[in-house]
């Protein structure tokens, strides 16, 4: 086994676009669930809308890359409105059910042949990179050291993603230390009590759904920036990876989602390297290398269960809160 390459491959996940994208989406989910108590099980749809909004704006409408990002965000705001108007007045569990269903509808709309000319159905979209790469301030060449050596495009995507993530984290921090955040946390605890104090609960929940949704869409954009937009990515299991990250890091924290995303992808990266290597050197009998690679998804599921059972407040969560978890 080549431990050097395993560790180097693993380390590269630290700042991969996937890690940044998942962290952004998990931050959005923190606004929804961690602070607002909104059970959104449709994060994949918000990400899909961001990614498709970006790609379609460029490919079909010829918009510049930054306008594509704005379109992606607007699409997720509209989606939040459509989702929220009928469900936010109902109990929290209705939102959960509706978001799962709505996310599947969104994915199927992008997969279906009907809109093939725009979405390219199941094959997805690609080759929208020119505009973004033209805006690259980094000169051509390969930079970095060790496992973090990328060409100018690789760096541009990563730096841009990290900047987006930093702005998003700052926004969440500013929001949650303010009276607005106080109302939102109050709604999480008991919305009737907050209503009785004269706060428009519906409006706050809608605003939270939109803010978190926009972060989800930005996650989708960052995910799409270096590669392609393929509908089969935005399945329900993507939503649950985001949930795993959120619960791992700590739901009602600003840095929990970031830490969670890093840990999640580093472990996933490590397992995807180490498991096939173990299988091929005979340490995992009864298993082919491909089977060994899928084993990691089983381990992720197991990890999610263990977190929820043994550390429901997450790594960065407040230990004191745990005493009062209902």
């Amino acid at each position, binding site marked *: 086994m080549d431990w050097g390459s395993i560790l180097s491959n693993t380390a590269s996940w630290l700042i991969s676009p996937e890690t940044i994208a998942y962290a952004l989406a998990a931050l959005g989910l923190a606004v929804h669930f961690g602070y607002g108590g909104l059970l959104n099980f449709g994060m994949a749809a918000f990400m899909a809308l961001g990614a498709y909004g970006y790609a379609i704006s460029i490919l079909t409408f010829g918009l510049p890359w930054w306008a594509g990002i704005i379109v992606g965000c607007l699409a997720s705001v509209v989606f939040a409105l459509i989702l929220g108007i009928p469900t936010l007045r109902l109990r929290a569990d209705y939102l959960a059910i509706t978001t799962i269903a709505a996310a599947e509808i969104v994915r199927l709309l992008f997969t279906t042949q009907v809109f093939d000319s725009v979405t390219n159905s199941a094959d997805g979209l690609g080759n929208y990179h020119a505009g973004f790469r033209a805006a690259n301030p980094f000169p051509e060449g390969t930079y970095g050291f060790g496992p973090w050596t990328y060409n100018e495009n690789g760096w541009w995507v990563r730096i841009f993603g990290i900047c987006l993530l930093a702005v998003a984290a700052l926004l969440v921090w500013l929001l949650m230390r*303010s*009276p607005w955040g106080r*109302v939102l946390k109050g709604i999480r605890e008991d919305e009737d009590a*907050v209503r009785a*104090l004269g706060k428009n609960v519906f409006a706050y929940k809608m605003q939270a759904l939109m803010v978190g949704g926009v972060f989800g869409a930005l996650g989708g954009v960052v995910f799409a920036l270096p590669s392609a937009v393929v509908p089969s990515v935005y399945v329900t299991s993507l939503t649950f990876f985001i949930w795993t990250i959120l619960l791992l890091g700590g739901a009602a924290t600003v840095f929990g989602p970031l830490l969670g995303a890093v840990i999640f992808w580093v472990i996933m990266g490590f397992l995807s390297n180490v498991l096939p290597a173990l299988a091929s050197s005979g340490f995992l009998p009864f298993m082919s290398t491909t089977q060994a690679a899928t084993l990691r998804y089983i381990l992720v599921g197991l990890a999610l269960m263990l977190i929820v059972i043994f550390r429901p407040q997450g790594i960065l969560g407040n230990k004191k809160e745990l005493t*009062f978890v209902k």
Partner: protein
Amino acid sequence: MSSSNAAPLKPVKSTGLHIGDAAPGVAKVDPIIIADNVTRQFGGLKAVDVEHLEIPRNAITALIGPNGAGKTTLFNLLTGFDKPDTGTWVFDGKQLNGVPAFKVARMGQVRTFQLTKALGLLTVLENMKLGSQKQKGEGIFASLIKPLWNKQEEEIEERALDILARFKLDTKKDDFAASLSGGQRKLLEMARALMSQPKLVMLDEPMAGVNPALTQSLLEHILDLKVQGMSVLFVEHDMQMVRHIADWVVVMAEGRVVAEGPPEDVMQNPAVIDAYLGSHQDVDLGVVTGRIAGEITSEVEDLLEEIDAETGVEHEIEQPPVVAPEKDEDSK
């Protein structure tokens, strides 16, 4: 009582609140709420059926009635937490039916809940600050810029600490509300409602589960509200307290207002005694059921006969075996 010097131990009763005879639906000199024909049906059960009701301004009104009389349901309707089948009502000159709960609260009609709603994972102080109205920092864009709301936040905090001190919760200000005891949560909920500087405070059983010493200070808080110019409508089962602080009593039974009037008069009203206090209010029910050993007085015999007549069961009166009084099952 620390800072409020206004609350006298002997409450000053407001009198002359009504016009004409004190009968259900009597007009008030200065009503803050006027409700007409308010009904709410749950399946076959008419939980609230109020033809006409006026709540006096700047007075303490008690709403009493047996369990299931529709008191909480009426609260829910008046505050917009539930929709009536029929009816209209006016609060402080404004038509309120159909107005959502949060707008009702903004107009100055604030309520507490029978089942206390403390916001568990917010601190006591945060709970209090949440009660304050018209906060600039509660708008999503303004919230991002602290200088816009910082000064107001400091004022709110000062006011919150002041009220907390009066409710003897100031030492708990940084604790999660979830860590408070049941009675402390009742206090917090009431204190939080006061943060909104309401015109009418509606308290659903504020005294339930609060110990006698605190009850006394709670009563003083309620009296103090009147001194500060607020109106109070509260639900309470303890007749002693109702007698003590209420200026006006409204009695509900089976959804209807069956009597109203000043406390002393209402307690004498046969309809009230029948509906609520029960005609056998002096009898210890433990003795009747044989759970507690006790003297079988003529009153107990009367009651037993009445029960037998209603259930059609023969009941032999015999001296129950002497047993130690059982512990009450669960008093929490």
